[in-house]
């Protein structure tokens, strides 16, 4: 993955030809920790120096097709629930047995999710970019609840260490990254990236 010549930012999936890495934040802004993907994208946008395209998709349906257009690699950032302590970070190449299809389907409020999007792109013969998931282990998703402190801390780590995440993903094709990485709460170094 080469570095983009002119990084830009976008609210949603208005794909720009030539983009290298697109970060797509997913989630529900009104459901506690489920907002984590959207908020990380907002903070990366505020950071202003991310060499990638940033998209926030609070309601990802068929629009996910556009989020996967004209790009080399896509990093989804979303809430995950695996039983790990809240705030644990999971960096997983997709598709992966680590991520159940039903979890992917839940990306859509009307039953259209990433799994359906990938199937459709395959049927259409469209190229599918390399995909990865940065999952943030959630605490609460109660409607209207604030994000839990552990998730807030994890968000801070992701935003601060995003250049390392970007560099890792940029090199992933050469390094042959294939397995999930986990970072426990409080591991602000993201050691290994």
């Amino acid at each position: 993955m080469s570095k983009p010549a002119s990084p830009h930012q976008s609210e949603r999936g208005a794909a720009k030809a030539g983009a290298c890495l697109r970060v797509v934040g997913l989630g529900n802004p009104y459901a506690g920790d489920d907002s984590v993907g959207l908020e990380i994208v907002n903070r990366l946008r505020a950071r202003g120096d991310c060499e990638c395209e940033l998209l926030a998709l609070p309601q990802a349906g068929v629009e996910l097709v556009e989020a996967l257009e004209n790009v080399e690699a896509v990093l989804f950032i979303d809430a995950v629930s695996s039983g790990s302590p809240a705030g644990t970070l999971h960096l997983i190449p997709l598709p992966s047995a680590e991520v159940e299809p039903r979890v992917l389907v839940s990306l859509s409020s009307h039953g259209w999710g990433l799994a359906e999007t990938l199937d459709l792109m395959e049927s259409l013969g469209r190229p599918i970019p390399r995909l990865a998931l940065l999952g943030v282990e959630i605490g609460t998703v109660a409607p209207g609840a604030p994000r839990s402190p552990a998730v807030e801390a994890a968000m801070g780590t992701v935003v601060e260490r995003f250049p390392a995440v970007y560099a890792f993903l940029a090199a992933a094709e050469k390094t042959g990254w294939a397995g999930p990485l986990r970072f426990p709460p409080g591991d602000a170094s993201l050691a290994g990236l």
Partner: protein
Amino acid sequence: MTTSPTGPSPLPLRTVRVENLSRVEGEGGLYARVENGVVREVKLDIFEPPRFFEAFLRGRHFQEVPDITARICGICPVAYQMSSVHAIEAAMGVTITPEIRALRRLLYCAEWIESHALHIYLLQAPDFLGYDSAIAMAADHPKEVEQGLRLKKVGNNLLEILGGRATHPVSVCVGGFYKAPRRAELLKLRSDFEWGIEASIATVKLVSGLKFPNFNPDYEFVSLSHPDEYPMNERRIVSSAGVDIEPAEFERVFLEEHVEHSTALHSKRADNGKSYFVGPLARINLNFEKLMPRAKQAAKTCGITWPSKNPFQGIVARAVELVHAYEEALALVDAYQQPVPSRVEIKVHAGEGSAATEAPRGVLYHRYRINDQGLVEFAKIVPPTAQNYRRMEDDLRLYLPGILDRSEPEIARACENLIRNYDPCISCSTHFLKLKLDRE
């Protein structure tokens, strides 16, 4: 072309149950019981949880209403915003400028485009072409699916410019818009609209050549009607049975009632208790002459006889409206003058008002009572899908006897196809399909 459902079932008792309706928005199912070929019971089981939006709105400031009601639906948020702002403006005695009115119409065009393109190509076309999903259809018809995706994308892009984002737009307010786009922003989409007109005319040709079952119930069609333009945001509510009323009279003529098997209310005519039909087919049948020129020409030459009482031809009506929406969007952009200011001032006072607009799926009625502090005291929302539920059940009673000789999966599929003619948005209305058929 048409095909006729075959004769009644020789089996004495059959139960049809579709556990989950697919390719609709929201969750519901269908139960039917048939005795000796006679349909005894049909129930659209709407088990999507009730959503209580009308209660949420109580006590909120009137200016919050369009943002809250937009959350009712991710497919048709503009419709909820439009009906709510018009109803509250009626309550406050607000008159908007012609420029704001035109911009609201453009916003509605964007929603019709994205919603109609989605339904035609990704939700309903697989029914007619014999596929279980758009994904399966895409393998054999990639050109058509790509066209549908692009048609939808242009609508999304327009919605993003006008509304600030493509889903749940945030620019709409009572009195106008928080921010109006610059003319140059809209002109960037001009070539897309020109392409969209041609692509949607091709869509009319494509869907009018599909095979439609020979099914023509005696419907009462209901829609808005405007003397000068195809209905979207205002004017009277009319029907093919002679209704011609102001929106304020809606609740006198149309009643909602609770039914045990549904978390959504069902609507009916107040005087005779009968079902009625809202949506694109109703709009075209009642407003054909108001279509934009190329949309009208496409409708006239597509081989369908209008008015049509065949609900399966709703896909053609939707395609004709796709042409209309693209055509009107182009005209509105060409004539666009940025409203300055983008919203009119509002003097808060107590009042009550109602309005109806044309959501992609049909008439959407709102009524609000606002107190002298500008807070909502009462809200009533009647979505188009809730108005169509009783009609869907009536359709199933008429349609089932003709298909009972088919296998259970075939019956279930045929019932789902029939329901999808209405493009139901169950999520909107709760406040789809599991099928069970009992036969005796």
